[in-house]
């Protein structure tokens, strides 16, 4: 195997991506299996997740949002399942890898640029000069606008990556406190309850962050796409 071959070796990251994707599909499969008029709990959850993303896509992007809905749905649940899978001890968090989040963000960025060019044509480039601004400010404004536009995938990817890394680093730090305190004997064992409690609370926080970051990623994607489809 050459360099390419070793890059394509299956590491645990793709395994967890596949697990995340399969979990979401299994959730939808078993949720919608009864296809009942009056839904049970799992079906209600599946329908709720559908409606939640559908409303977000249509409300944010507009009527054209229905076309992007499967993409937004895939994005949101891929990220959220990845975030939550990473909270299981000894598992792997693929959303904590900048390579993965940057790839996702670049995909969103390229999609929004392609849609912009398709919908607005060359008028797309007029957005880099804010309407109503004095012309003599153009040499200043246009580079700023281009820079802010280009920084979108960077901020999008770093936000998710940094949140995931920070959460797991906090887990690691407080867990290492427990081990350090345990070496102090009985007093240390008693004191170690403190970081343990903090880690339990952090788990609650990370559950929130995991959903929130997936939501932020999805809603920002919606906002970029809204700008893309706007005439």
């Amino acid at each position, binding site marked *: 195997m050459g360099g390419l071959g070793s890059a*394509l070796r299956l590491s645990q990251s793709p395994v967890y991506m596949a697990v995340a*994707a399969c979990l979401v599909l299994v959730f939808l499969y078993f949720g919608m299996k009864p296809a009942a008029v009056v839904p049970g709990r799992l079906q209600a959850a599946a329908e709720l997740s559908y*409606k939640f993303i559908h409303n977000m896509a249509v409300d944010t992007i507009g009527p054209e949002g229905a076309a992007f809905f499967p993409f937004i749905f*895939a994005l949101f649940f891929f990220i959220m399942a990845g975030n939550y899978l990473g909270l299981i001890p000894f598992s792997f968090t693929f959303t*904590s890898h900048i390579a993965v989040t940057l790839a996702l963000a670049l995909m969103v960025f390229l999609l929004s640029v392609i849609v912009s060019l398709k919908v607005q044509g060359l008028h797309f480039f007029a957005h880099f000069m804010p309407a109503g601004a004095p012309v003599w400010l153009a040499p200043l404004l246009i580079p700023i606008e281009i820079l802010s536009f280009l920084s979108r995938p960077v901020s999008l990817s770093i936000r998710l990556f940094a949140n995931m890394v920070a959460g797991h680093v906090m887990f690691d730090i407080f867990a290492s406190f427990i081990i350090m305190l345990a070496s102090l004997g009985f007093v240390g064992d008693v004191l170690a309850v403190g970081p343990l409690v903090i880690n339990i609370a952090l788990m609650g926080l990370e559950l929130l962050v995991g959903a929130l970051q997936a939501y932020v990623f999805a809603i920002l994607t919606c906002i970029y796409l809204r700008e893309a489809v706007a005439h």
Partner: protein
Amino acid sequence: MFPVRTMKAALTGIVPAVLSGAVLLVAEAPRAYASGMPQLDFANPLTLGQVFWGGVIFLLFFLALRGWALPKVETVLKSRDDRISGDLDLARNAKAEADRAVHELLQARRDAHAEAQAHLEKVVGAERDEAARRLAEMNARLEEEIGAAEAAVAQERSRALSSLRPIAAEAAAEIVGRLTGAQPDQDAVGRALPAHIS
């Protein structure tokens, strides 16, 4: 009780096995940790390998969602919406039907009321006309009687007035006779009477 006992036996076997497995994992775990930030270790080919695999998995995930999972949810939601709106339509139609029936009932009641009122007015009017006619008749008869009585009175009066002259002449002759002792001449008395006493 047998299954419970076997379960207990199984549990007593499983729990230590799981615990020892967990201990082994924990013991193994530190070796699984990479030092520093493996995310930024781009020299490791696996770091960028994630992008390829992530792309493939995400694409398959997206296609599975778009082609299979999400349409399934949509079908269920749509059939429910259709059913609910169908039921709502049914209920709305039934309500319209009931409203129409109530309206017809009220209309019938109003018509009946109006008819009764008209009938009542007709009867009352007829009675009133009849009473007026009878009153007029009575008035006419009374007028007639009054007229007849007045005519009789006038006749009596004129008769009384026509016999006034002889009585006056007689009275005048009598007065003259008493005063003078001589009977006056009838013609002279007649001439002396004022002309307006006819």
